[in-house]
């Protein structure tokens, strides 16, 4: 039978590749398994994979290609927030669902009824960090080190929601994406004597720098750096870092074991949140396609996806305002112990 074409725009090169490559692995596995089970409606799935090189203008070009030349039914990705905004501008009018690996939660997303989010909004990420900082670590004074891209967005939200928590933000320092050194920033945060420090961004460098200048306060981090690669690049700085994420494959939740096993069987290593979210993204599209069939009217697939979906990463509800439906209690917290992620008993949002 004629294959169903699904597009993907991932940042497999450039600064976003830390997330883009795991996403690619999760996605390819999901496609493979669906095809092994006979595809959707008896038709195999053909994945058209594109790399946007972490640049939004390239992402738009690729989206144009996928939608108008390749005639895909849905787009998995992009990896980065800015690319999501850019691609949404092309895909939404064409009523092609976009399963973005970013969480926006900005009001304008209300108008884009076909752009779904596989990861929590930054508002939620900010709250998850503050929850664990205040409730699990008991921090009264929080320092923040963040990068100029993803970290910057989260930081904006931390500022907004921090009044809800009994914590004072005592130092905020920034490093630019790709920086080779953030020692001075770390020193400036250290000088403010915080009880805990949130390090938000896609780089192992600041973690190392913080430990190198003997910053002993607990470090917290978000999704972006919760991967084995980053942990390896952190070197001996990697212990006792707390992550707010969704999947600890060493100790998965019952709803996650099937995915973890399949992944380990395929690749021989453990997956993290990014792999799981890509797996979910494809499966959500596949579920929608199974409902409306591959020949449906434009927009029907979006409608079909717009509902609850039980994924390996977490439970989604794409009919929510933020087009993701993730909640604080969906988070899983982990701590690094000798390079291994250990799931913490702490639950947020309770």
């Amino acid at each position, binding site marked *: 039978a004629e294959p169903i074409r699904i597009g993907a725009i991932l940042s497999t*090169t450039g600064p976003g590749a830390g997330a883009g490559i795991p996403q690619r692995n999760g996605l390819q596995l999901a496609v493979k398994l669906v095809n092994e089970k006979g595809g959707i409606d008896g038709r195999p799935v053909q994945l058209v994979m*594109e*790399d946007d090189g*972490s*640049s*939004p*203008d390239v992402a*738009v*070009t690729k989206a*144009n*290609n996928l939608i*108008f*030349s*390749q005639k895909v039914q849905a787009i998995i990705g992009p990896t*980065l*927030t*800015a690319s999501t*905004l*850019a691609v*949404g*501008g*092309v895909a939404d009018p064409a009523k092609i669902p976009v399963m973005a690996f970013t969480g926006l939660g*900005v009001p*304008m997303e209300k108008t884009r009824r076909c752009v779904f989010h596989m990861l929590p909004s930054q508002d939620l990420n900010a709250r998850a960090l503050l929850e664990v900082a205040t409730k699990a670590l008991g921090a009264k004074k929080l320092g923040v080190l963040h990068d*100029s*891209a*993803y970290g*910057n*967005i989260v930081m*904006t939200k931390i500022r907004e929601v921090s009044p809800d928590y009994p914590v004072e933000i005592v130092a905020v320092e920034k490093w*630019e994406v790709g920086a080779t050194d953030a020692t001075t920033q770390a020193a400036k945060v250290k000088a403010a004597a915080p009880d805990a420090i949130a390090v938000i961004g896609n780089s192992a460098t600041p973690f190392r720098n913080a430990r190198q200048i003997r910053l002993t306060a607990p470090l917290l981090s978000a999704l972006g750096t919760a991967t084995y690669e980053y942990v390896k690049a952190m070197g001996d700085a990697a212990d006792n870092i707390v992550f707010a994420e969704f999947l600890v494959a060493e100790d998965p939740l019952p709803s996650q074991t099937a995915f973890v096993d399949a992944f380990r069987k395929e690749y021989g290593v453990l997956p993290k949140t990014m792999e799981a979210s890509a797996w979910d993204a494809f499966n959500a599209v596949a579920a929608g396609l199974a409902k409306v069939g591959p020949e449906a009217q434009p927009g029907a697939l979006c409608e079909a996806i717009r509902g609850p979906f039980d994924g390996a990463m977490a439970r989604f509800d794409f009919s929510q305002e933020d087009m993701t439906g993730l909640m604080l209690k969906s988070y899983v917290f982990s701590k690094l112990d000798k390079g291994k992620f250990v799931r913490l008993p702490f639950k947020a949002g309770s």
Partner: protein
Amino acid sequence: MLPNKTSLAPPGIAGELPAQRLRTARPSAATLSVLAFGAGLYLILPLVLERHAVDLLVFCGLYAIAGAGVGFLLGQGGIVNLGQAAFYGIGGYASAYCSARLNWPAPAGIAIGIVLSMAIAALIGRPILRLSGYFLALATLALGIICTNIYFEADFITGGTLGVPGVPKLAIGGFVFDTPERYYYLVWPIAFAIILAMHNLMGSRIGLALQAMRDAPDAAMVMAIDNARLKLWIFMLSSGLGALSGSLFAHYVGFVNVDSFGVDKSILFLLVPVIGGASVPAGAIIGALFIGLVPELLSALGDIHRVLFGLALVASVVFFPDGLWGLGRGLIELTRRRSGAADRGETMP
């Protein structure tokens, strides 16, 4: 009396002026037919190509506009500009802010971007254009990075990392340029007009002065050429083109953010004329096509495509010394020589 004294003829009764061989000399029939063919090809391309290909060509056009500015600085002024993305960004943000946030008509945003860019170029150019060679290149590089930094920080205008979404499509007199095809027919004529204007300038007194300034600045000064002012002018011209390209980019993609205005873009804009050949303005067109299309063609080959793109750059410089434009001209010359066409009045034996 020495026999040679006869050559000291007073002015006025000199021998006949050799046939014109100015840079603006009338094109030959061969050139004209090539041009006509090119124009035809240009017009029908969108009809035969897929939308995606047209989309790529629109980006090529944008690169050509911004790259032409950098190329003119390099080829005519000997100035390596590693900061064009700064002006590209000014154009992009001016358009995005004016039309998406303030709901002003698109031409207003474009004009503001260009004027602002040229004003900034005038202001900053005065001190930094006193530098020369690689020192100037470093200053432009620094300028580019400073601007990127500011784009990150000034998020009340630029939206920071998130950028400005929802930039409306460009509409002129009710006609909306909302498809790649329509944009293609808008962007490329602009690029051609710019190249033509540059070509004109090269054939003028100012163009000669530019070349003179580049080859021997001291001697140019003695000929009363105001090197500083010339440099400032072409720097402003280049900046204005960067802004124009950025504005067109913003309206085309409908979204701008800092990622589009980084140092890598500046390097790309420099590569455009260098690959195409910086000695002729039209080199920017060829360079833009190369930069815009080759990575896309190679990306079909999988992960190795970036290595291949690097090698393609290397090959282009090793095998085509004057840029791809030089290759084209070489071929034309060759066919001409073959067909025994009349020589061009050059005195080279």
